């Protein structure tokens, strides 16, 4: 009563008592704790503020905390119970940061022995918090008594404190001695004590699997009074069942009957827990899951939102593993779509979308359509996401689903919502190539009425890239032209760039003519960026003079090529930066030296993209994620070496290869750097022997098997102390016109000096030793890079290279289960990049055409067209046509495949 009144008073006086609480002021106020004449009420108020402050995450420094802590200890003089309670709380909060908190041990021990139950319970909790392992023994006597105390609060406090002690590793052996007392507490009339006792008992026994299973089995039979204890028991059972794994066919799961009986428990919480556990059992069968679905179905029609939400969540989870199992609840779930709680509604939709069979897609879409306008954007985004997944799952339904997305696009909605739809379209275009035309159509309509500049520009760019390849490019031009007259400057500029794409070399002269007319109008635009882009496009495409169509086409090709840099911009930028940083500007910068290949950084981003794709499909790829994080500049070690830096940046750096097993004396990794006329092998060596210091570590390479190696230059790692990685280089210079392919035997030669592991000092003298590591092999893929910019049109690039250096060959590949695996094997082997999405193969395909582009050292463009045909007898026929600007290269690539 008194507490209630005070709270009310505080509220009246200050508005909220917690308004404007500030650390400095509170610390100042804490001084009143030391007043000779203690003002109990005021102290309480200050303590509440202090606790509020700390609870809000305000950090006290060690000194501040210690100061406050000591003044709080002065409050032990008061016999006011509510003040004492606040003191306990304050000590608990300050115990982390303050020093010398053990000073209150005596006061707390005294409280534990007092006859006020509130003191006893709280003092126990605080004491166990501040105590150390040694002191636990001294207070064990009291704790043991409290475990079996009649008062439920005291007994619970002791039980929970026991858990805390175990958790923080304070006096485990003491707590483990309490099994008898804790077991006795299990029979306490209070459900709370029973719950806490079970938790502690489990914690004590958890490392003894047999004891745990005996405990769980006994309790499962006898039952527990407390619903919370039952929930706990279910969790322990779940853990046991997870450990047991998937039962053999025809075998029953032990304990399953217990879960099943819990489904009929009186309390919802127990029923829910049992259902949840069953749903997540390893390898759960539809028959096992059915009873759980049945009880969850009853939850769905309960008035309480939280019950509905909980049930919906589990059903959602079940929908993922056994979509058919939740069929009986379909009608209930459908009603929930209209639930006033949006979380429930969204879960309902996603569950429905997950379980939708190919035939029911239309019906569900219809339902969502009615409701989509009523929900908030964040839920709309979830719906779009679910539809996207559905579309990938049933590509044959893409037409309906895309139309749905299209109409969603026309609905009211914020940027995030619209963006998610546009993203969905982009992904679907990539995954379902036949949907491109429809996607572009929807997007075109969208930009007619789009208020988001970023989305408009994105779509315009996409139209520029994809539009010209569609069957009727002309129809897109109308949409783009509309932007040109209706939109703001940014969008207009994007539209000009998009239009320019349509006038690219392989479109019809008529189209070029109409594009040039449109572009010319933009020459008088009010915005200079738009004017510039239009002028640039007209000039570079040769559209400013359309008199002689034939001449122009030729000219266009030429100017188009001239206007292009011979290398990708990011690579150029990186090289230029390095050139400037090098300070040696007397020598001119060589544009030819810049690699056309995709930089490793770019490549790793690609991996990240793939990883996130596969994550979206539910396959975790932690390894790829890790790799992705390290890849900064793989050539940085090489460029840091003064002898090698003058060779410049390598054309290609291959991923590191392990040359040793794990846990050998020395671990060696090799990174191959490819130059136009040399190959640098970078060996990253780690010495894992703490009694050795290695000096002058050379990596001798035997290149007998390899042709054309002219000269070998070895650069040693001067010193390799234990555990510190070092790098040795072997530089292989090659003759012109030969390609270093084959394997290289590597032997490590070094001087060993013994080290006393205790002092870390090395002996004076040393001896030489050798260590054989695995061979390094150089394959085609090592000399090939993916181009940084894929040709926009494979056909035109293919035609441009011409048939001068074309090599055609046919092979038979064995041992491929499908066309898809054969295709990815070819891509891996050649190290080239696939073009125009030809790396995606439909599952049922029996033949496939793969288009690839690559850059072969030194900067030679290679294109490859591979026809893969699956034979009935399981073999795979491969026909390749290779074009490049160098006969030797074409020949080599073709031979390499053989």
């Amino acid at each position, binding site marked *: 009563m008194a507490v209630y*009144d005070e709270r009310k*008073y505080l509220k009246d006086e200050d508005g909220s008592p917690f308004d404007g609480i500030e650390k400095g002021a509170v610390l100042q106020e804490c001084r009143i704790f030391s007043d000779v004449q203690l003002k109990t009420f005021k102290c309480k108020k200050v303590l509440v503020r202090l606790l509020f402050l700390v609870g809000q995450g305000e950090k006290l420094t060690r000194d501040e905390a210690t100061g406050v802590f000591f003044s709080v200890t002065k409050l032990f003089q008061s016999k006011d119970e509510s003040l004492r309670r606040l003191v306990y709380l304050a000590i608990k909060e300050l115990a982390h940061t303050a020093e010398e908190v*053990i000073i209150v041990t005596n006061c707390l021990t005294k409280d534990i022995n007092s006859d006020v139950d509130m003191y006893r319970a709280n003092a126990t909790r605080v004491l166990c918090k501040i105590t150390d392992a040694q002191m636990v023994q001294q207070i064990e006597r009291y704790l043991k008594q409290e475990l079996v105390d009649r008062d439920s609060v005291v007994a619970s406090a002791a039980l929970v404190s026991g858990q805390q002690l175990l958790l923080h590793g304070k006096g485990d052996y003491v707590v483990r001695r309490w099994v008898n007392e804790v077991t006795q507490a299990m029979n306490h009339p209070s459900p709370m004590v029973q719950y806490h006792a079970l938790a502690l008992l489990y914690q004590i026994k958890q490392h003894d699997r047999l004891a745990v299973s005996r405990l769980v089995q006994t309790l499962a039979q006898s039952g527990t009074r407390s619903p919370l204890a039952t929930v706990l028991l279910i969790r322990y059972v779940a853990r046991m069942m997870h450990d047991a794994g998937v039962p053999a066919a025809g075998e029953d799961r032990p304990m399953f009957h217990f879960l099943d009986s819990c489904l009929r428990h009186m309390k919802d919480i127990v029923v829910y827990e049992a259902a949840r556990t069953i749903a997540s059992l390893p390898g759960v069968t539809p028959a096992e899951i059915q009873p759980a679905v049945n009880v969850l179905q009853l939850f769905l029609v309960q008035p309480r939102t939280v019950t509905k939400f909980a049930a919906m969540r589990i059903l959602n989870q079940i929908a993922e593993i056994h979509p058919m199992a939740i069929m009986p609840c379909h009608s209930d779930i459908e009603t929930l779509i209209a639930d006033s709680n949006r979380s429930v509604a969204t879960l309902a939709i996603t569950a429905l979308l997950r379980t939708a069979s190919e035939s029911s897609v239309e019906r569900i879409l219809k339902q969502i359509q009615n409701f989509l306008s009523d929900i908030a954007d964040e839920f709309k985004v979830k719906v779009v996401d679910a539809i996207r997944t559905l579309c990938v799952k049933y590509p044959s339904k893409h037409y309906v689903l895309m139309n749905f997305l299209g109409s969603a696009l026309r609905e009211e909605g914020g940027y995030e919502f619209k963006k998610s739809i546009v993203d969905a379209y982009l992904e679907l275009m990539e995954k379902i190539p036949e949907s491109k035309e429809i996607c572009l159509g929807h997007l075109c309509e969208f930009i007619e009425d789009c208020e988001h500049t970023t989305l408009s520009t994105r779509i315009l760019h996409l139209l520029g890239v994809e539009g010209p390849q569609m069957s009727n490019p002309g129809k897109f031009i109308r949409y783009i032209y509309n932007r040109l007259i209706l939109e703001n400057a940014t969008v207009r500029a994007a539209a000009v760039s998009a239009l320019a794409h349509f006038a690219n070399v392989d479109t019809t002269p008529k189209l070029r003519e109409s594009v040039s007319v449109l572009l010319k109008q933009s020459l008088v635009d009010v915005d200079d960026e738009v004017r510039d882009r239009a002028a640039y496009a007209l000039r570079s495409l040769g559209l400013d003079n359309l008199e002689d169509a034939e001449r122009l086409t030729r000219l266009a090709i030429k100017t188009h090529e001239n206007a292009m840099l011979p290398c990708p911009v990011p690579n150029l930028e990186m090289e230029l930066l390095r050139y400037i940083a090098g300070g040696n500007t007397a020598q001119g910068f060589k544009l030819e030296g810049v690699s056309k290949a995709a930089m490793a950084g770019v490549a790793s981003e690609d991996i990240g993209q793939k990883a996130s794709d596969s994550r979206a499909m539910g396959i975790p790829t932690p390894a790829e994620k890790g790799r992705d994080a390290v890849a900064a500049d793989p050539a940085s070690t090489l460029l840091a070496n003064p002898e090698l830096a003058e060779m410049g940046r390598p054309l290609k750096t291959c991923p590191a290869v392990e040359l040793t097993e794990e846990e050998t004396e020395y671990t060696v990794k090799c990174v191959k750097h490819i130059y136009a006329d040399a190959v640098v092998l970078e060996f990253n060596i780690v010495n894992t022997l703490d009694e050795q210091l290695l000096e002058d570590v050379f990596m001798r390479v035997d290149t007998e098997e390899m042709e054309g190696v002219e000269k070998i230059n070895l650069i040693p790692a001067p010193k390799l102390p234990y555990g510190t990685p070092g790098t040795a280089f072997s530089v292989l210079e090659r003759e012109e016109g030969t390609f270093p392919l084959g394997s290289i035997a590597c032997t490590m030669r070094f001087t060993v000096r013994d080290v006393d592991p205790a002092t870390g000092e090395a002996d004076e003298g040393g001896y030489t030793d050798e260590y054989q590591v695995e061979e390094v092999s150089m394959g085609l893929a090592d000399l090939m890079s993916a181009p940084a910019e894929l040709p926009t049109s494979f056909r035109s690039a293919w035609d441009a290279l011409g048939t001068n250096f074309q090599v055609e060959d046919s092979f038979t590949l064995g041992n491929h289960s499908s066309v898809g695996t054969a295709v990815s094997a070819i891509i891996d082997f050649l190290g080239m990049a696939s073009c125009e999405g030809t790396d995606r193969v439909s599952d049922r395909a029996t033949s496939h055409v793969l288009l690839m582009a690559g850059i072969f050292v030194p900067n030679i463009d290679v294109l490859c067209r591979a026809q893969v045909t699956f034979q009935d007898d399981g073999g795979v026929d491969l026909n390749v046509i290779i074009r490049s600007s160098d006969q030797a290269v074409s020949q080599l690539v073709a031979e390499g495949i053989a």
Partner: protein
Amino acid sequence: MSDLVSQLMRSWTDLMDWLYGMFFQQEMDLSILGLPAAGKTTLVTLISRNEMIEDRIPTRGLNMQKYSKGGVTLKMWDLGGQANFRAMWERYCVGASAIVYVVDAADSEKFALSRSELHDLLSKPSLAGIPLLLLGNKSDLPAAVKSEKELAEIFDLASLKGREVCAYSISARNRTNIDITLQWLIAHSSKKS
């Protein structure tokens, strides 16, 4: 309405507290310090509850006891004497009405340590001017130093400048000189405020 009542009630309690303190009650903080097993807790228990309990377990930290007599309340902050608690003595002495330093008068081996601890403590600027009462406990034992003058010499009380210093030889077990100790303490409580 109930708000008003509760507010009135509160102001009333505050007022009463204040009046009580003004006219009837004089409170003082005392810090009871000394090496372990000097008899601090025994003395404090004897004063506050008039009980003689021997064979106590060592005090781990802080023990607070009150004693009221004739309008004066003594709040005795009895601190553990173990080395790890000594660092905290100062915190409980700041603002105290008096520091009571208890020594085991029969344990001459610890005199040197006890003296240096006392002088270390009193050299702290924050404790300047706080009166010191040195109690040579266990005077009932035959080996004990019973003369107060001798005690003062052993503990070099003459060198403590700028504060009132006094020494008594007492025995908690036999309740010798406990009354004069109390008289001294009470006298200092009224003098201070």
